Each structure stands twice: as C-alpha cells, then as structure tokens.
C-alpha cells in the first residue's frame, strides 16, 4: 500500500483545522497549517511517484455505492499521467500557497481564504487520483465549488459575487454534459471504473462512443473554458490573484484537458469527437488571442491568454498528441502561474491598480517582479529554449501532421500571443509611469515563489513529458521538422517585434491603428459582444420566461392559488367544524362511537373482512 489517500487527506485536514478553528489562530499558525499540509502532500506525492514504475498503483478503500450488480468503489490510482498532474498540482500549489501569505497579508478573512485553498487542493487531488469517473466527478464538482467560493471571496463586491455565480452556472452546463456521459457509460459499460471501461471500449459501437465522447467534451469545455463556455473565465479574475493563478490558470481549468487525455481510449475509438476537440481547441485559441489584443486590464489579458493556451492544449489532445497536450499543460502551469503571480505582484505594488494604462516604467521600481515576469513572457512566446517553446512546438508539429492549415492558424495565434503578452509587458514596465500610487517591491515571501516559477519557466521544457508518457499514450508525434519549428519561433519573435515597435519605438502607432480600424477594434475590444449575445439569446428569454410563466403563472397563479385555496377552504371548514371542539370529552366520545358505527356499516356493505 502506498497510502494514496494521504495525498488529498493532508490538505483536507488543513481545511478542517483552519476552517473550524482558524478564526482563533494567529496568521502564522493559519499559514503554517495551510502551507505545511500542502507541502507535506507534495512530499508524499513525490515519494509515491519515485516508487512508480510502468504499472499503475491502484488502491481500493471501500465500496461507495452497491446497487445490484453495479458498484462504485472509493478508489484511487496513480499512473504516469496522474503523476504529472500530481506534481503540477502540489508543486505549483505549494508555491502559490507561499505567495498567498504575502499577497493576502492585509486582507480580511485570512483563515477563510487558506481554508478554501486547502479545500480546493483536496478536491483537485481527488480529481486527479480518481480511479473511476464518479470519484473524478466528486473532485470535479468540488473544485467547481471552491472556484465559486474563491471567485466570490470578496463577497461584499457585487461584481465578484456575480462572477462567482457566472462561473458556477456556466460550469453547470458543462457538468450536465459530464453527468449524461457518465450515465451513458453506466448504461453501456455497467461500471465507471477507468480500467474496466477502457479495456472494453473497442467492443462498443462507435456511435455510442462518439456520443459519450461528445458529452464528455461538453464537460471539459465548461471546466477548461473552451468556446462557447469560456465566458466565465475572464470574469473569474474578480477573485484574489493567487486564486487566478492556482485555479484559473494552473490547475482547475486544466482538468478538462486532463479528463479528455484520461479518456483517450474512448476518443481514439470516436475519431469524429476527437476531431471536434481539435476544432474547438484551435478556434478557442485563435479567438481568445484576438480578444487579448485589445484588453487593458492586465489580469484580463492573461485570462484570455489562458483561454487561448487551453485551446492549444485541446488542439494538441485533439490532434492525437495527448502527451504534447499534457506537456503544454505542465509548462503552461509554470509560466501562466508565474504571469498571474507577477501581475498580482504588480497589482500589489500599485495597491490594487489593474489598468495597464495607469502603469508604465515599473521596470526599475520592482525589478524582481519585472525580471521574473519577463521569463514567463518569453516562455509563453515560444522562444527557445524556454519552457513554452518545447511544448507549443510539439503541439504545432502534431497539428501539422494532422492538417497543415491547423498548423498555420496555430502559428499565427502564437504570434498574436507573443504580441499581446509583450504589449502588456511594455505597457507595464516601460515608458513613463502614468499612475498615482507609489510602487513598492513585494516582500520576499512573494518574490521567492516568483523566482522558483521563473526557474521552472526557463528550464521546465527539459522535463520531457512525452518521453515519460511514451508508453502511456499511443505514439502520435511525427519526426522533428526543423522548418516548422523555425516558422513558429519566427512567428513568436515577429509578435514580440511588432509589440516593441508599437509600444516602445512609436507609442502613438497603437492608438492610430485602433482608431483607423474603428468597428473592428470595437468588436475585439468588446470581446465580440459574446456576453451580450448570450445575454440577449439565453439569459433574457430565460429570465423573462421565468418571470412571466413560472413566477406569475405557475407559482403565483397555480401553486399559490392552490395553496391559498386549500388554506381558505380549510379555514371555512374549520370555522364550522370547530363547533365539534366543545372541550367536552363525552361528546367527543359520542362522535368516536358514531365513526365506529359508520366504519362497521361500511365494512358490512362492502362485504366484510372475509
């Protein structure tokens, strides 16, 4: 036994202690417990993975649901895929926990924040360790809950609670698909256990598998913020920045990718669904990248970047390069967490300012933040030998194998990505300071995690995930193609160059371009009016339908009417019947006798007891 349960149980213990008793603890005690539990969990995960061979470790704890022949156990399993996820979640998670100590130092609800973070870790690790779909679903829902709690952490802010609601509701749509997929799996396979399901996949008809895979994809789209269910993620930036880094960049949003990769046997036997994954990923990547071009809020830029990068992962998975997707998942966790944490550090330095138009020239004032953030920016732009280069490259090569036009779209997107990230960098750190606050460098407890992540962003690409997962996934990558690599790297460099030209060399160019493009710019600036379209097409009809039909018609008219009618009828009846309530026992007894006689008569009339 490897005692896998310890890995999620440690953060859960931290959650219980902090959640129940944290109010009375000092801050030091709270963050010792929170960080300590996650760090211990990381250590235990590391120990488990070091002893991991080619085979997976499976542990059965108890039977959760037993109904006839159907049974679901509380099972955990670790294989090589899980190992990657485990390390990313616990490793990046620990760093972000440390960072949060500094970032949240002056916030109210300190213990509550760390309790939520620990709870999130518990659910995320459950999700990753799950050996069947139901346990995975528990984690899946749990991280959704924690995401909701943490987005709305500043619950006195209306926009924050709204964003939390939005995330929760949009995720429900995805979860609905996931639930349907699970039901279909139960119906067709009679079990939810990964091992059994994947073993018998080849014997099932393709139509069924395609339906299941599509429904799973709906779930993955919701969780991983893919088109058309991506809308919640940018809004989710209302939460504290460590939350954005941990949940909405590094871990939770990658759960969709993980789930699709986990279910790869199903997808391999449902090629059209796999194709759909690729299309959605590619479209989302390009679509979100264009939106990112015109955003002024630093966190929003990175949020759309996250959506876009998740699209890349879907593209990788969808083109059959599962290991490339997971590879990108890991490197993305490093540099995107770093981007967010760095942005948080900037925001922290400016005491809450998020608009890039009010920044500038911060390079000298907060050098640690600048340099670490620069590492991440280079990494995401795909410049070799930084982490992003290897994984993005792997995906693009796989896309070229699949369909060359996908490669080209991906490459252009890579250029766009490099452009907007560096746009953000230049607007923030170069030029003249345009704000009013007095910037100050963050404390060491924040900069140290930044440094650690920067190192990972630089060298993370040398952790060769495709090699590690070589035997796990069917091989899909073709031979290295130097020209393809060169083109994509060039696209990134061109993006950086344009950004440099537009925001450093001739700062006026950007404005003139945006004004000359006019309508197109407004379209992009307003995120293609997707939120407004959803609002008009889905939300408004739903709300007004609920109001008119369900509230006024059903609730007030039918249900309330029936209830009130019953009430008034019984009141009237009671007014008459109360005359029987004379308080005189003997008259009561007379009526009882009367009733008994009626009963006897009825029995006799319907033929008696025989």
């Amino acid at each position, binding site marked *: 036994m490897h005692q896998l349960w310890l890995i999620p149980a440690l953060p859960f213990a931290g959650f219980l202690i902090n959640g129940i008793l944290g109010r009375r603890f000092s801050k030091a005690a709270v963050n010792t417990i929170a960080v300590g539990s996650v760090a211990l969990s990381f250590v235990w995960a590391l120990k488990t993975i070091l002893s991991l061979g080619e085979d997976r470790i499976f542990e059965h704890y108890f039977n959760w649901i037993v109904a006839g022949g159907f049974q679901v156990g509380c099972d955990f399993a670790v294989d090589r895929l899980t190992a990657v996820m485990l390390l990313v979640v616990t490793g990046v998670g620990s760093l972000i926990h440390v960072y949060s100590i500094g970032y949240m130092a002056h916030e109210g609800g300190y213990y509550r924040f760390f309790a939520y973070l620990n709870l999130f870790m518990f659910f995320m690790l459950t999700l990753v360790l799950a050996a069947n779909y139901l346990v995975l679903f528990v984690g899946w829902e749990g991280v959704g809950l924690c995401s909701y709690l943490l987005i709305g952490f500043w619950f006195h802010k209306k926009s924050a609670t709204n964003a939390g609601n939005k995330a929760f509701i949009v995720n429900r749509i995805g979860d609905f698909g996931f639930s349907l997929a699970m039901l279909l799996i139960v119906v067709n396979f009679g079990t939810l256990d990964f091992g059994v399901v994947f073993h018998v996949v080849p014997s099932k008809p393709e139509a069924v598998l395609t339906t299941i895979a599509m429904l799973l994809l709906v779930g993955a789209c919701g969780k991983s913020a893919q088109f058309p269910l991506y809308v919640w993620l940018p809004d989710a930036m209302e939460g504290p920045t460590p939350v954005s880094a941990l949940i909405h960049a590094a871990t939770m949003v990658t759960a969709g990718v993980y789930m699709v990769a986990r279910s790869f046997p199903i997808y391999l036997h449902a090629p059209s669904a796999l194709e759909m994954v690729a299309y959605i990923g590619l479209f989302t990547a390009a679509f979100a990248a264009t939106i990112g071009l015109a955003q002024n809020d630093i966190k929003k830029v990175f949020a759309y970047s996250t959506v876009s990068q998740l699209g890349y992962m879907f593209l990788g998975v969808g083109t059959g390069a599962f290991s490339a997707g997971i590879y990108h998942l890991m490197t993305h966790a490093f540099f995107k967490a770093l981007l967010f944490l760095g942005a948080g550090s900037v925001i922290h330095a400016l005491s809450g300012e998020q608009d890039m138009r009010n920044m500038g020239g911060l390079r000298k004032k907060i050098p640690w933040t600048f340099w670490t953030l620069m590492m991440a920016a280079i990494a995401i732009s795909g410049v070799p030998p930084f982490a992003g280069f290897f994984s993005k490259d792997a995906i693009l090569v796989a896309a070229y194998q699949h369909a060359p036009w996908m490669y080209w779209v991906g490459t252009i997107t890579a250029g766009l990505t490099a452009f907007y990230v560096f746009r953000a960098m230049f607007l923030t750190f170069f030029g003249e300071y345009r704000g009013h606050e007095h910037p100050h460098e963050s404390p060491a407890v924040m900069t140290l995690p930044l440094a650690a992540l920067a190192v990972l962003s630089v060298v993370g690409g040398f952790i060769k995930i495709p090699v590690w997962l070589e035997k796990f996934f069917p091989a899909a990558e073709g031979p290295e193609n130097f020209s393809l690599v060169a083109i994509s790297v060039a696209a990134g460099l061109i993006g950086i160059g344009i950004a440099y030209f537009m925001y450093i060399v001739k700062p006026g160019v950007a404005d003139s371009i945006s004004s000359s493009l006019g309508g197109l710019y407004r379209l992009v600036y307003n995120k293609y009016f997707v939120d407004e379209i959803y609002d008009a097409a889905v939300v408004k009809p739903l709300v007004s339908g609920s109001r008119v039909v369900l509230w006024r018609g059903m609730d007030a008219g039918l249900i309330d009417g029936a209830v009130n009618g019953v009430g008034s009828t019984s009141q009237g009846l009671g007014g008459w019947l109360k005359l029987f309530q004379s308080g005189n026992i003997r008259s009561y007894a*007379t009526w009882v006798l009367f009733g008994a*006689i009626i009963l*006897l008569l009825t029995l*006799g009339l319907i033929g008696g007891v025989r």
Partner: protein
Amino acid sequence: MDVILFLVFAIAAVVCAVNVVVQTHPISSAISLIGVMASLAVLYLLLGAEFLAMAQIIVYAGAVMVLFVFVIMLLNAGSEAKRGRSLTAQLLGFPLLIVFLALASYFIQRFYPGNTPVLFGTFKGGTAQMIGRALFTQYLLPFEVTSVLILIAIVGAVVLARKEL
C-alpha cells in the same frame, strides 16, 4: 358443565359491568369492575388461557385496580353530580349504543356461525411455557418496546405526580 360455568360467569360479568356503569360512587364501580375482571379470568381459563387468566388477576385486579382504589381513597371522591352538560352524549349516546350493539351482534353471527363449541382443556396453547416461548422469540421486539413504554410511563407518572407541578 362448560355451558353452566360459562353462563354463571358471563352473567356475573355482565351484572358487574352494568353495576360499573350505574353505580354513582366510584368505589362501588371499582369493586364491580374487579368482579368483571375476576369473572373474565375464569372465562379465560375456560378458553384455555391459564397464564392469561392469572395475569389478568395479578395485573388488572391486583395492581391496576388497587391503584384505582388507592386514588379514589386518596382523593376521597364522593358520588358524582347528578346532571352534566353534554347534550350530544345524552341525546345521541343511547341510540348509537343500541345501533352499535346490534351491528356487532349481527356481524358476529354472520362471520362466526356458532359451530365451534368451547370445551375446557381442548386448547393447550395457553401455558406459561408457550406464552414465554412466543414472547421471547417471535414477539421479542414488541416485548422490548413495551418495556420501554413502561419505563416512559414510570417517568411520566413520577413527573406528573411531583408536588411542584
């Protein structure tokens, strides 16, 4: 012999029961009720329920009725008032009773035609052994529940009878 015994004790029971109803003094009613219970105990014996007959005497006549007599003596209850106020009971009660009795007799005659003669000694199932076996195997749960009920009754009676209530 059985018929004579039945008639003697049935008539005794009915007379005593009538006495329970018509006597104005509670203690006379109580004594009559003891008479009914004793007569019923004999009838139980005739029906082969020897354990139950003894339980009837011990529990009902020996304990429950002693409590009644005790309370009557404690409260020094006298004869009751002549007129009450319940018009419903006065007006409806008697006709309803007649109807009830008639109906009950009719159904008994209809469903149980009198072809089962009751002979003393033909039913051996009422011994203490049989009752005990049934009580502690088949009816164990009801038995235990009843003991809980009695415990509750004890607590309730003690609480109710406290001085400060």
